[in-house]
């Protein structure tokens, strides 16, 4: 595939000559007339046509007069006007649009009149009013008067397709953009054309429910094509591409008009894809977010989480002023100078006081590149420690070696386009739909040409939609499975095709040897490895060196050369020499009082298996930099409020390594983490130089990329033996102990999705999954299954028998009723005890 694509790229594109409205133009062969017209600046009205969807010719609004040379070479006009969105140009074609042809203009006006016959014309009420292609084109290309005098067709309004998406069939012009999007792009068919004639309508599937497969959403939902409840992570895009007001979202319904809104371009903070978004706000309040068009990254699509999850930053528990714990032990509001002074005093005591044991820094995984850089530099220069880790999830040294050797400062590696073009993709510990969002859409584009293999306990719905082949693996044994892929394996054969990609996710950190084996497999097959983390800030933090062993520029703190290069750039004598503790290490040390103080960024204690609450209580001094009040801020001694992404500028580095800079959408007094840390450092007598985004970026440029000898060595960790993996993938009758498998659903109870009940309604119901044999062995038939980890509490969920690897129980990581890390205190790969029939 790639080979042919490259060939096509290098060859001259075959062109044809056409004349549109008297303008001669040479365009690529197979260009649609409507696209060719755009190239010469002629706009043909349209509704159904969308550049990213296949042509449909559904609305007939783009009719033009076409004539093309016949066999004898003479120009022969088509007998009737033709739809320019479905017809491709041919050599010598002459097109006359509404600008030059009365016939075309008459045809377009007629179509417009027809489309408006049953349209309710309720523009004053409609959410689309003011930005509606139908409204605009009725004004520019329609008749001022309608001849229609009869009663209009009416439908019940609105029809809730899900708790978020509402369908108003009266307004629909049957362009089928929504049905084509959900079918072609997202792969979640949930609506389609029904009936004929005047009663033709977009409708939901009303067949009997075929059976519950555990993918239903929490809230109300229409049925989808399969008869199950409609549940899609991308349904918000249909609202944006609807050319009339037929599809609206509950969140934005009747809230505002386009002229109220101030738009600001931005980057989504919800995943590592760095999707371009547009934030629309009024009087300092975000009212909606839309997908921006970025062909290199997210094209024109974003996930529903990117689109609808923004309410969290304006919740009532938002922090606006610093808090300092007073002598009575209460957190009280304080001025910035007071708070900074208090924080500095506490940290000074922990760094240089008598018997000082040092400070640990947990920035959290959602920060920008600049913030991560400031945290890393603050830890090393001001606090004199390498105990800094952005990974607030399962983490390992092997992962750090992998990140240091193969990810940090490698620039733009595998891109979205590479992933789309790849002939085959192997997913290891990564669910593109749940953990990648738009990554899934790009891979879906190449389906079914692209061969996808997934190393997972079972074939998730997202993987199924990609036509993926399952390479069964018990969590924790992914490395063993990768090592066991022989030359004869389908996956290895497919990966040997040039341009193939191996995707490793963040959960791979919990599988010993998996990174090592992924790199080895890449060596064997020639495929490229790409790391796709879940959180937006993780790749940036790797670049900025906010990991315990990693310096900015990709340097290893254990290598003197790397330390020297960074130390001289920072104007200090030396940096702490040994690799620091990782997130679990920092929290364990703090709990055991081996650390005096903690500096905590946007970290939710419930995301961690380690007992963060205990660590925060045990630490003598805690500084928290947060947007909202959390369990962490409640236990902090000083709380410094920082800006949410929409109120600051900065850069997210997406998983490709692409810098996704964004400007401040809403100007407020809130400061970004790097600015606050700069103030704090100044109070401690150090000029951190991270006061502005520009200053940080200038420093990052000066640091540059360190040479290979200053970098970390590739990981070399042995995966568990094949026998152990086999044993884990089997189940003995009567056993209670199973291996835990888990990942985050895209829409769940993550802290950035709070305050948005309509979105929460589209999240999937939490279910536990196990194979038929496993269920039988542990004595579960149906109903609830109770899963217990190291803590007293258990997770009780309805069980869904799934075709999957034996000996494993799968739970969603943070869905309603299933907060795995918080409730079980365990990560995927750990052993849990399971009890049926509760």
């Amino acid at each position, binding site marked *: 595939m790639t080979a042919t694509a490259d060939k096509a790229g290098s060859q001259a594109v075959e062109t044809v000559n056409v004349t549109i409205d008297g303008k001669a133009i040479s365009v690529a062969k197979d260009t649609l007339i409507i696209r060719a017209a755009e190239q010469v600046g002629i706009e043909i009205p349209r509704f159904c046509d969308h550049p990213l969807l296949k042509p449909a010719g559904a609305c007939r609004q783009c009719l033009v007069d076409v004539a093309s040379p016949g066999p004898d070479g003479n120009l022969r006009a088509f007998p009737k006007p033709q739809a320019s969105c479905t017809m491709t140009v041919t050599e010598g074609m002459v097109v006359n649009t509404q600008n030059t042809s009365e016939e075309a203009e008459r045809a377009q006006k007629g179509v417009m009149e027809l489309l408006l016959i049953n349209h309710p014309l309720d*523009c*004053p009420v409609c959410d689309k009013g*003011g930005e509606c292609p139908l409204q605009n084109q009725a004004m520019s290309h329609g008749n001022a008067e309608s001849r229609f005098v009869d009663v209009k067709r*009416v439908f019940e309004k*609105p029809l809730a397709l899900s708790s978020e998406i509402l369908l108003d069939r009266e307004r629909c012009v049957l362009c089928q953009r929504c049905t084509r999007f959900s079918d072609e792009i997202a792969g979640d068919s949930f609506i389609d054309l029904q009936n004929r004639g005047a009663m033709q309508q977009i409708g939901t599937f009303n067949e009997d429910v075929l059976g519950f497969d555990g993918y239903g959403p929490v809230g109300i939902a229409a049925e989808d094509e399969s008869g199950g409840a409609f549940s899609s992570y991308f349904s918000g895009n249909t609202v944006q591409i609807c050319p009339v007001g037929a599809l609206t979202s509950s969140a934005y*319904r*009747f809230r*505002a*008009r386009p*002229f109220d809104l101030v738009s600001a371009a931005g980057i989504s903070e919800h995943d590592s894809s760095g999707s371009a978004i547009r934030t629309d706000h009024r009087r300092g309040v975000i009212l909606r977010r839309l997908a921006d068009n970025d062909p290199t990254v997210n094209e024109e699509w974003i996930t529903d989480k990117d689109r609808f999850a923004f309410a969290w930053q304006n919740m009532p528990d938002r922090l606006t002023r610093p808090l300092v714990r007073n002598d009575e032990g209460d957190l009280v509001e304080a001025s910035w100078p007071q708070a900074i002074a208090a924080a500095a005093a506490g940290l000074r005591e922990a760094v240089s006081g008598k018997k000082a044991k040092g400070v640990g820094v947990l920035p959290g995984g959602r920060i920008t590149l600049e913030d991560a850089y400031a945290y890393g530099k603050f830890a090393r220069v001001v606090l004199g420690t390498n105990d800094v880790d952005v990974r607030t999830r399962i983490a390992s040294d092997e992962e750090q070696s992998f990140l240091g050797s193969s990810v940090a400062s490698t620039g733009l590696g595998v891109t979205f386009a590479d992933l789309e073009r790849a002939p085959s993709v192997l997913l290891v510990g990564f669910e593109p739909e749940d953990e990648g969002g738009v990554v899934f859409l790009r891979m879906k584009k190449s389906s079914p040409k692209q061969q996808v293999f997934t190393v997972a306990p079972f074939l998730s719905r997202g993987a199924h939609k990609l036509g993926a082949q399952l390479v069964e693996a018990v969590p924790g044994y992914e490395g063993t499975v990768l090592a066991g892929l022989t030359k004869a394996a389908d996956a290895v054969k497919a990966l040997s095709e040039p341009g193939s990609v191996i995707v490793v996710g963040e959960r791979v950190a919990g599988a010993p040897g998996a990174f090592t084996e992924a790199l080895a497999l890449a060596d064997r097959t020639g495929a490229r490895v790409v790391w796709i983390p879940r959180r937006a800030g993780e790749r940036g933090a790797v670049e900025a060196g906010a990991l315990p062993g990693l310096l900015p520029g990709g340097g290893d703190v254990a290598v003197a050369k790397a330390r020297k290069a960074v130390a001289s750039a920072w104007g200090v004598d030396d940096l702490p020499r040994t690799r620091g503790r990782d997130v679990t290490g920092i929290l364990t040390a703090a709990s055991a009082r081996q650390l005096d103080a903690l500096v905590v960024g946007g970290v939710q204690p419930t995301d961690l298996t380690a007992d963060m609450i205990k660590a925060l209580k045990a630490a003598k001094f805690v500084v928290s930099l947060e947007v909202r009040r959390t369990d962490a801020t409640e236990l902090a001694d000083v709380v410094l409020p920082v800006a949410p992404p929409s109120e600051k500028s900065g850069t997210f580095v997406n998983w490709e390594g692409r810098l996704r800079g964004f400007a401040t959408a809403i100007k407020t007094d809130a400061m970004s983490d790097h600015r606050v840390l700069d103030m704090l450092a100044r109070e401690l007598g150090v000029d951190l130089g991270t006061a502005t985004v520009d200053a940080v970026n200038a420093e990052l440029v000066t640091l540059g990329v360190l040479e290979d000898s200053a970098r970390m060595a590739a990981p070399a960790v042995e995966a568990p033996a094949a026998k152990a993996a086999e044993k884990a993938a089997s189940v003995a009758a009567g056993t209670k102990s199973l291996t835990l498998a888990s990942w985050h659903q895209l829409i769940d109870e993550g802290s950035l999705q709070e305050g948005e009940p309509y979105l929460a309604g589209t999240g999937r119901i939490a279910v536990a999954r196990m194979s038929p044999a496993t269920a039988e062995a542990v004595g579960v038939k149906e109903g609830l299954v109770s899963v217990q980890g190291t803590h007293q509490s258990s997770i009780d969920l309805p069980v869904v028998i799934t075709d999957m690897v034996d000996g494993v129980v799968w739970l969603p990581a943070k869905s309603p009723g299933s907060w795995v890390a918080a409730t079980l205190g365990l990560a995927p790969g750990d052993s849990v005890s399971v009890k049926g029939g509760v």
Partner: protein
Amino acid sequence: MTDSNDAVWEVNRERDGGHQPFESNLPKLSGMGEVLAPVAGFGISLRNFFRPTVTEQYPREKVPTMPRYHGRHQLNRYADGLEKCIGCELCAWACPADAIYVEGADNPLDAAMSPGERYGRVYQINYLRCIFCGLCIEACPTRALTMTNEYELAGPTREGLIYEKQDLLAPMGENMLAAPHPMVPGVGDEAYYRGEVTEVDPAQVDWVREHRPEEPTLPENRKRHAEPVEADRG
């Protein structure tokens, strides 16, 4: 500085012909006319002594405006008491002075504020900005917004001149029933727009009686509430 400025003035004055003597272009009077000219103006005063007075004795005496005078806005109601405003914001869109601020909201149909799916939750007109041009009235698709003849719009504070929705809403008519309550049963919002709703439906009264028995606009409460007002006036 001053010297050079004077020099500039000098030059300018010369350029403007300031050095030339003044000459009136009024017709030159002669003889008696020229003698009486200084007192001729009193004739005008004398003549007006015998004409009717046009001065309006505002505020002691308020003269009605012309019927289509552009005064304070009013948000009208339908005959059953539902608000005509649907929160479409077209008035705010039309306003050249950016004086109107509207926020729409989902209209609960079982306890409606206006007919249809949407109503105006927030409605503000800033009379410090309003230029009374009436473009908002032209823009209003439901005739919810009209102008009264009230012109006494002054106040001691800026905040006080931002009129909220409750300040702008028309007073309840004689037989109206205050919102929220459901629409007249069996008709859609379009019946309202066509003017087919002319009175409160008994079903609406029943609904309000059930949900807000103390509602002053209920028929049984109306009298009770009306009497004290009469007494006050007395």
